[in-house]
Structure formats: structure tokens, C-alpha cells
């Protein structure tokens, strides 16, 4: 049997009241408290495991389902083509334009620019992204990527969100992995035309 009631006779108390370990005796949780705590523990971890079984995150409960799929060698990923005022272009990851953990940056781009139809929100966020990149780029920290940085004297004037098809079986060390196809799904230009495709 796991739990036992703790016996406390009055005789024992009178004998041990002055003993330095007396306080420790008083610390013993009652059997009911122990059982309640154990039951709460089991319920809590069952809730956590259920999130894993159903593959859902329901904050603050977490399924810890990171990387839980087999990624095909031919797959598509989101990249950002940043446009400079001198006509130049930089291809970066979503994490390089948002000061968030890289995985949250990807999700946010998908939700705001891919799933949502709220054009005004897209423009507002795009404007904020460019303003932040040009005025106050952030450093890298852990899972937050370093902000893209325009060359000295230049500034960003727009960006395209691109869906790149990549074939990882073609990977060669030291060589850039070139996309096999590119699809632009959103474009933004500072103070000029904005295009959703």
C-alpha cells in the first residue's frame, strides 16, 4: 500500500516537542492531502498527454509536437525577397523580418498573409516591418534570428513573400541550394502599389 496514515499519539508529542526534528514531524502531509496531490498530478499529465494524442496546442498546455512529421526531400518553404532603394534584393527567412522566434515568424506570415483576407492588416503589418528593419534592427538571440540589414546608405522599400520549392536531395556542402520553382504570394512596396496574388 502506498499511503499510510501517520500516527501521532499525545504521548509522542509530549516526549518529542522540544526535539529539533519536531518541526519536521509537523510537516507530514495527511494521507488525504497526499492522495489529492497525486490525483491532481495524474490529471494534469493526462491533460498534457491528450494534447499530444490529438496533436493540438492549447496554451498553456503543449503537445510538444515539434518536428513530428517526416519532411519530404522536395518541399516548399516561405522566403522573403527584400527590395532595396538602390534596386538591390536580399532573400531572407521570415525570422529575419520579424523579431519573434523563427517558428512563430513562419506561422505569423502564413496566418496573416496566406490564410487571412484582411488586406488592411497586411498593409499595416508590412509598413511596420519595413519601418522596424530600417530604423531599429534587432540582434539574434537563441531562436530569434538577427534582423535583415540593408547595406550602409541603403534602405528597404518593399518585399515579396515567396514560396520556394526546394529539393534537399540536391544539397552539396558549400553550395547554395537553389529553388526549383518560385511563387510570389504577396508583394508590398513602401508608399506604392501593393499586390496580393
Amino acid at each position, binding site marked *: 500500500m*502506498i499511503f499510510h496514515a*501517520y500516527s501521532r499519539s499525545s504521548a509522542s508529542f509530549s516526549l*518529542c516537542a522540544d526535539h529539533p526534528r519536531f518541526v519536521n514531524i509537523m510537516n507530514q502531509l495527511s494521507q488525504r492531502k*497526499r492522495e489529492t496531490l497525486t490525483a491532481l498530478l495524474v490529471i494534469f499529465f493526462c491533460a498534457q498527454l491528450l494534447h*499530444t494524442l490529438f496533436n493540438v496546442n492549447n496554451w498553456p498546455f503543449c503537445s510538444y509536437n515539434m518536428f513530428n512529421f517526416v519532411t519530404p*526531400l522536395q518541399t516548399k518553404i516561405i522566403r522573403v525577397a527584400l527590395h532595396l532603394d538602390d534596386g538591390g534584393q536580399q532573400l531572407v527567412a521570415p525570422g529575419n523580418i520579424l*523579431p519573434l522566434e523563427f*517558428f*512563430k515568424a513562419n506561422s505569423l506570415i502564413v496566418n496573416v498573409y496566406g490564410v487571412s483576407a484582411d488586406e488592411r492588416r497586411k498593409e499595416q*503589418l508590412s509598413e511596420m516591418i519595413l519601418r522596424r528593419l530600417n530604423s531599429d534592427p534587432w540582434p539574434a538571440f537563441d531562436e530569434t534570428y538577427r534582423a535583415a540589414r540593408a547595406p550602409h546608405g541603403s534602405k528597404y522599400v518593399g518585399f515579396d513573400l515567396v514560396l520556394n520549392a526546394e529539393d534537399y536531395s540536391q544539397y552539396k556542402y558549400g553550395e547554395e541550394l537553389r529553388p526549383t520553382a518560385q511563387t510570389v504570394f504577396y508583394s508590398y512596396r513602401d508608399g506604392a502599389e501593393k499586390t496580393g496574388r
Partner: protein
Amino acid sequence: VDSKQTSQAGYEGGAAEFLFNQPNACQRLSLARIFLAVICLVQVLFGAYDRFYAETSEILFSPGFPFYFFPPLGKGFYLLKAVTILSAVALGLGLKTRSANVVLAGSFLLLNFYVSYFGASTWSYNTHLNFFLIALCFADSSRHYSLDKLLNRPRRAALRPVGQETASFVLSFMQIYVAVLYLQSGVSKLLYGGMGWYLGGQTLFVFTIRGGTSFGLYLAQYPWVFKLLAVGTGIFEFGFFFLCFYRKAHKLLAVAATVFHLSVWLTMGISFWFLWLLLPALFWLKSGEPTPRPLLSRQG
């Protein structure tokens, strides 16, 4: 004698022994308190709790479970951050420990909730910090390594029971959380990736090329390495859970987890530091005086 005393306390090994009689629980919990506070502090100061959340709250914040009516904070985000930072400093130092613990648990809970509902899926892999801080509120973590102890501050706390068993339970909760976390990660891969996830290593290979480190990109020349890493991941994730309940294996688990996370960091650039920095306090350290046993017997 020892087994007799254990029996008198009602542990008798097994689950009760594991949950309520961790050796030096108060001391280890005090150390865990410091690590928790430092991790929260570093995350909020240098991590992704950026002013982005203050500037975009009107267009991106959309509250959900469990605070459906939480308003967009705007510049109030800075206030929430400030409270979190100050309480983390106080908790780390052990100054007004109990109060600091409650304030940090509350403010960091709100802060983490807030940043998890910004136009993205509610991905948040550091909620163990929230649960641990809440659990810590129920134990006295000021008895070691604290200014409160140094200044002989906690007059009221001194009148309260030491709470060795409560401290042990909170410590066990944290240990089991870590073990279940790895189990969840393993089960999730098995359910949704299948055995192919572990035998192929393809996911690790692709994500290393996508966002990995220079060393990871070098290793990607040899895809078989990622098969080994995937098998190792499986052994670690499932093994950790089952070995967690054997105290003799705890030091081994602390080393294994550190090696695992360092390997992932060196190849894929994902450190998960906010979890494994807690492991020494939770799994490694047992030194110091043994837990005093109760003197009373059933016979008196």
C-alpha cells in the same frame, strides 16, 4: 533502521517515496528557484518579448483560452514586462521570496499568454516555466541561497512548517514534467511521423539544411549521420521518461539531456536552453545533509 523509519513516515518506496521524500528537496528547490528566475529574466530581457508586441497589439492580438477577454495592451506591454523583470530579480535573489514568486508567476503567465495570441498558432514551448513558477508558490524556496535567509527575514515563514514533503512534491512535479515532455515529444513523432521518422532521419536532415549551423551544414554531407541522430533521439526521449522514476539514474539523465540538447544546438541551432539549464537542480544535485527522518513511531 532506515527502512523502518521510512515505513513509519508512510513512504515505503514506490510512488509515495518518489513524490514526497526527495532527498534535500528544500535545498534543491531553492536552487531551482534561482535558475527559474534567471531563465525568466534572460528570456524577457533578451528574448523574443520584443516591442513588436506593443506596436502591433491593435492589429494582431486576438485573445483565447483561458483569458478570452484580455484586452490589447499596447504600451501596457512594457509595464507587464517591467513587473516580470523586477519580480524575477527579487525571486532570483530570494528577496521577499514568497511575494516575488507569486508576482512573477502571475506576470509571466500573463506575458506568455499575451505573446502566444499574436496572429499565429499558439506555439509556445516554454510554458513549463509558467507551470513551475506556479508550483513553486506552494513551497518555501527561501530556506537556502536567499537574501531572506541571510537577513533572517522570513519571520512569518519561520512559524510555518518547513514543508519538506511539499517541497519534495513540487520538485517531483518538475521532474515528471520534464520526463513527460520528452515522452510527449517521442509519442508525437511516433504517432504522426511513424517509425520512419526515427529510422530515416530525414526531418533532421532537411531542417538542418534549412536553418542549421555551419557544423550542421557540414554534417549534412553525410545523411547517414542524421539517421543515427534520429535513432538517438528516440532512445533518449522514451528512455528519459522510464528512467526518471529511478533516482539512481538521475545523474545519467541530466548528462544525457545536456548532451542531447547540445547536439541539437550544434547542428540545428535550437538550444532549448530554458529547459535543460534547470536539469542540474532537478536531477543532478543531491548533496548536503540527508533529509531528517521523523522520530515518532506508531508505538510512541
